């Protein structure tokens, strides 16, 4: 290791040292070293708070910052774009948070979906007319390509989407919850991220499109998931879940 690398390795060790651990260098005892430690930790925690606002609201600021500090030690940022810092925060919460907060990891997944949709590429949205104009015989040769901002999650047993949207939409938080599973789609066809609840057939259809199945196959898979009418398809198209039709193999 070069002298510069050795210096930086020791410096990082002292920067991210937990309070109960001993510093490894004399310089870490200088008052100024705490300035770097505080700046680094505060910037990381502030970024997590900005990217997971619903988790922060649910936990309260103090509790959130304790959890975020643990996450920073576990997974510091990998690059300078802090607007996307925090990938893996939801699974970290799932592993570490108290069991009576099981929905918290799912809410964190939706905060993450919002961030990813917000920062995604600005691709166009496929026109519903393009689908309508497709001859039935051609549906086996075409597939729908997901829009880069489209994100969806299916929650098996908890109303995580309702909890999340009540915070995001500033609705009454305390209203009674129907404690059952639900699924959600987040999209950003223009400049604003929007979201809606979707059914099991839509979830199956989106996953099939993500796996590059043809339109025919994706519709069959959605039908097996419980809906033969495909009444949900116009909703997905209008929401902006897809960017274009692509020939199979493209």
């Amino acid at each position: 290791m070069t002298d510069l690398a050795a210096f930086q390795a020791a410096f990082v060790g002292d920067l991210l040292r937990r309070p109960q651990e001993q510093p490894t260098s004399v310089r870490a005892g200088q008052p100024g070293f705490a300035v770097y430690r505080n700046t680094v930790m505060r910037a990381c925690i502030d970024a997590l708070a900005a990217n997971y606002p619903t988790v922060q609201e649910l936990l309260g600021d103090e509790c959130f910052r304790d959890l975020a500090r643990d996450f920073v030690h576990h997974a510091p940022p990998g690059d300078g774009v802090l607007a996307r810092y925090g990938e893996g925060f939801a699974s970290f919460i799932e592993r570490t948070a108290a069991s009576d907060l099981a929905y918290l990891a799912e809410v964190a997944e939706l905060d993450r979906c919002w961030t990813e949709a917000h920062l995604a590429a600005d691709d166009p949205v496929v026109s519903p007319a393009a689908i309508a104009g497709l001859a039935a015989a051609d549906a086996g040769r075409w597939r729908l390509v997901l829009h880069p901002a489209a994100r969806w999650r299916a929650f098996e047993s908890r109303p995580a989407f309702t909890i999340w949207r009540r915070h995001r939409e500033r609705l009454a938080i305390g209203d009674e919850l129907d404690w059952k599973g639900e699924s959600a789609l987040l999209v950003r066809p223009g400049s604003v991220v929007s979201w809606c609840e979707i059914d099991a057939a839509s979830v199956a259809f989106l996953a099939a499109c993500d796996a590059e199945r043809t339109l025919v196959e994706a519709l069959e898979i959605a039908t097996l998931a419980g809906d033969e009418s495909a009444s949900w398809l116009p909703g997905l198209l209008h929401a902006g879940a897809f960017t274009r039709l692509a020939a199979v193999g493209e």
Partner: protein
Amino acid sequence: MGDLGAGLGLKAEHYDEALRCRSDGLWFEVHAENYMVAGGPRRAWLRAVRRAHPLSLHGVSLSLAGAEPVDAAALAALAALVREVEPSLVSEHLAWSRFAGAYLPDLLPFPRTAEALQRICDNVARVQDAIGRTIAIENPSHYLALDGHEFDEIDFLSTLARRTGCSLLLDLNNVHVSTVNVGGSAERYVDAFPAALVSELHLAGHRPDAVHGERLLIDSHDAPVAPAVWALFDRFVARAGPRPTLIERDADVPAFAVLMAERDEAQARIREAVSLAAA
């Protein structure tokens, strides 16, 4: 660079006012990393501001003084942003912030050795090759007395500029904060700084550390520019003439009009220096 007078750090909450604002010499600076994303409203806002004003991209995470080469993905994202917004100025810091796959969001110090100089020269050259233009390198704030320096900071920066063709960004608040924290004379530093290499000046506020008080100043960017820092600005401009000058505010951000009043103060001092030079 000819038309750039005093500029302002652009904060998200001020986008609409910044878009509409017109003032002699006005330009805006943003942290490049806030816009190094694939798409979405952030990039759209920045494009709109760029249509109305000259723009400066100020990087904070390239880790030029890191032991490793500049991250290729970050460099590609910066190059794409430079192509899109065609900034008037591009700058980074004499600091490091990445190590072994982790990004530590601060501008970290290092012993100014011949090895470190070679690393940062290589990294500055990589950046300049990738974006097809020279960049300016900023003197950082210091909080630690480090062992092992082989160069003083001005020699180090001058050699870096000579070897790579980069210019220098002189942050006068950092000069003040650093000399209070680790010793030296701010006036002597400003007088010795190689004026011909300076393409931009930064002005910002600082605050005393909560524990150690006035002996440890924090480069917090959460207050108006201090009188001592204005004095360093006047001192540099009297000797070297004006440069594009930025008012930075990153925390406790006041109303846009309050920041513009501070920016107008810098613009007035620049105008005065220009008219004195012409007289």
